[in-house]
């Protein structure tokens, strides 16, 4: 009379179900539905969502957009990497490549930017710390998110998708200042 014998009843699918099981299935189902509807709810009322805006691109095309932005808005340099201060509301390009986030961005607090992310070679992971926003960066795809920094300071961009031997040196920076 066990779990590894055929069921006792010929028509086991007609046996009654215990109250504890029925009640638990009911509670669990309600909880599952709540969790499901939280996701569309957050798309409408929440402030942290992915835009679903993405374009196919090529490393060369994306590099050109980055270079154009750097040429226009460069305000300085750190460790050989240009610091760029694009105007609020503009399209901002950030490239991941072996093993660097390029360039360094300087943004204003509470302003919204259209941040474009792409990789010029392998997969990379955009991990903004210590804010803790994590996005996958894939070669051939330009991902756009509207980002509104609401805290000031220097933030690190860790690469959190394994990208070879220099992976741990791939560190970028976003600077956020008061307007």
């Amino acid at each position, binding site marked *: *009379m*066990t*779990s*590894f*014998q*055929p*069921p006792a*009843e*010929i028509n*086991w699918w007609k*046996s*009654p*179900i*215990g109250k*504890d*099981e029925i*009640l*638990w299935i009911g*509670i669990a189902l309600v*909880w*599952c*539905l709540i*969790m499901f509807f939280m*996701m569309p709810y957050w*798309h409408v009322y*929440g402030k*942290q*969502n*992915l835009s*679903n805006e993405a374009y*196919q691109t090529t490393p060369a095309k994306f590099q050109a957009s980055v270079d154009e932005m750097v040429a226009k808005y460069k305000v300085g340099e*750190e*460790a050989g*990497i240009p610091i760029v201060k694009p105007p609020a509301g503009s399209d901002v390009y950030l490239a991941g490549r072996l093993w660097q986030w390029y360039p360094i961005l300087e943004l204003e607090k509470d302003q919204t930017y259209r941040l474009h992310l792409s990789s010029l070679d392998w997969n990379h*992971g955009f*991990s*903004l*710390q*210590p*804010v*803790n*926003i*994590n996005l*996958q960066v*894939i*070669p*051939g*795809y330009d991902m756009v998110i*509207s980002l509104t920094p*609401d*805290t000031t300071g220097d933030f690190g961009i*860790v690469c*959190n*998708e*394994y990208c070879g031997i220099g*992976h*741990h040196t*791939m*560190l970028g*920076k976003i600077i956020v200042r008061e307007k």
Partner: protein
Amino acid sequence: MGQFRQCPDSGFFFDKSAERLMKANAVVAVVALLIAGILALGVVLTRWQSVHLLPADAFYTVLTGHGINGLIYWIIFFEMAVLYFASSTLLRVQLATPRWAWAGFGLMLTGAVMNNIAILSGKSSVMMTSYVPMQAQPHFYLGLILFAVGALIGCFVFLGTLVKAKDENTYEGSIPLVTFGALTAAIIAVFTIASGAIVLIPTFLWSIGYVNHIDAAMYRVIWWAFGHSSQQINVAAHVSIWYLIIGVLFGARPMSEKVSRFAFLLYILFLQLASAHHILADPGISSEWKIFNTSYAMYLAVLASLIHGLTVPGSMEIAQRRKGLTKGLFEWLRKAPWGNPVFSGFFISLVIFGFIGGITGVVMGTEQINLIIHNTIYVPAHFHATVVVGTSLTFMALTYLLIPVLFRRQTFLPKIAQWQPYVFGLGMTILILFQLGAGTLGVSRRHWDMGFTGAALSFDYAGTAYMMMAVSGVGGVLAAVGGAMFIVVAVGSLIFGKKLEPSAGFLQSFALKPLAPEVYNIDQPALLARAEKLPVEESKSSGFHSPGTFVLAMILMVCFVVYYFINWDYLSSVWPMG
């Protein structure tokens, strides 16, 4: 000369060829676990920042090998043994086409060795996921393909054995629940392996120059239909084993055949949608697709796991109460055989899988919450709760059950065996909890140096993050000790354990020879009869049969709800984006 032997202790019938296949698969599985365990030490001792044992290149090689041997070879070789057990042994039928089963085993072994050679040479350190366009050596992919084809053959041998049992009328009525669960695992496995073929065959051709481009995003979507679904094979397999263990130890039967089978059916229908869990933060895939898939279409597979979460301990509670352990809510649990590693391994696995693995999995699989978790060390923490404490510890518990039954040896060093699930479970739980904490602080997974030595710019994680990684390292070392205890008991039993069958020698234990021919003295076992009917008042009553389990389930639900909303609250504090 017969074809079967009956184990005098357990009453199980073993078909001669199925028995050797089970032994061979289980032995190779344990070898893979040994490799994975040794490499695990390299991983934890490197990520423990003040020890930082390995150089970067060795670390990534070791991490690739650890993942593939632990997650693929140990688990799938063992699952092959489970499939043969759940079909041939439980249904009392000869294994269908044993030669094909051996061919499958040979392919799996060849593939596993080939793939390990590629990894350990240090030239294919691409992680288990091998995301293109990062490229491994061709035999890395070819090894995986051969292994998958072999596993597919094993699944079809299992299905063929079910057909054979039906055809030969070796059992009455419907197949037992445990076999039904194994069938679920096999069906998911076929889907999984097909996805693996679709993605790995072109990738192999790309690695030898016959295909010039593989889309990096497409690769991730299809690879995860293979990578995540294979974890769902494990869930179906270890839940089936939970039912088997409570059946063997307590004579438990499912609270309701209908409910438990329905839950397995939900797995078949919805589990494989979960490949979305890994691509929630990817570009080019719409939120509608992500929400539908990541939630298994409205969390129907989560519902199935929640059902098993009640019915597995609930069935045990009912069996224990029937034996008179009826005092209070928890006498049935207090007086369980905590000193028997088959039980303790199973129960620790059940609790950690449900409370930590299940809850964290659903939380990080929520489309938006994933933004604060994607690719942090929270992710490996989650899957160590599911596949290491969940699946692997369950397999270890089953091994303790099989040593006397299948291998006909007494357990070697039973005291060590008795402590093993506790040491392993405790070590893993420490590792998991502190990696969850470090992941919440943003620490990256698959990362050699959280101090970023040699980077042009600098960033410092919080001091707490370093502390948490250190404690998780201590947990990891403790878990490795627990893993070593398992290996010592399992391998030791096969070599030094007292023989329960005079012919159960060294060669027989390692499947190189069958037991003495006279042991197989049964041509065809008696018909596998239906379970005994319960007295009418019990089978027709629809009252509260397992109040203790219901209370435990409600505690799980409260933890789940609270932790879920804590994470939404955390998400709401990060920079607005849309």
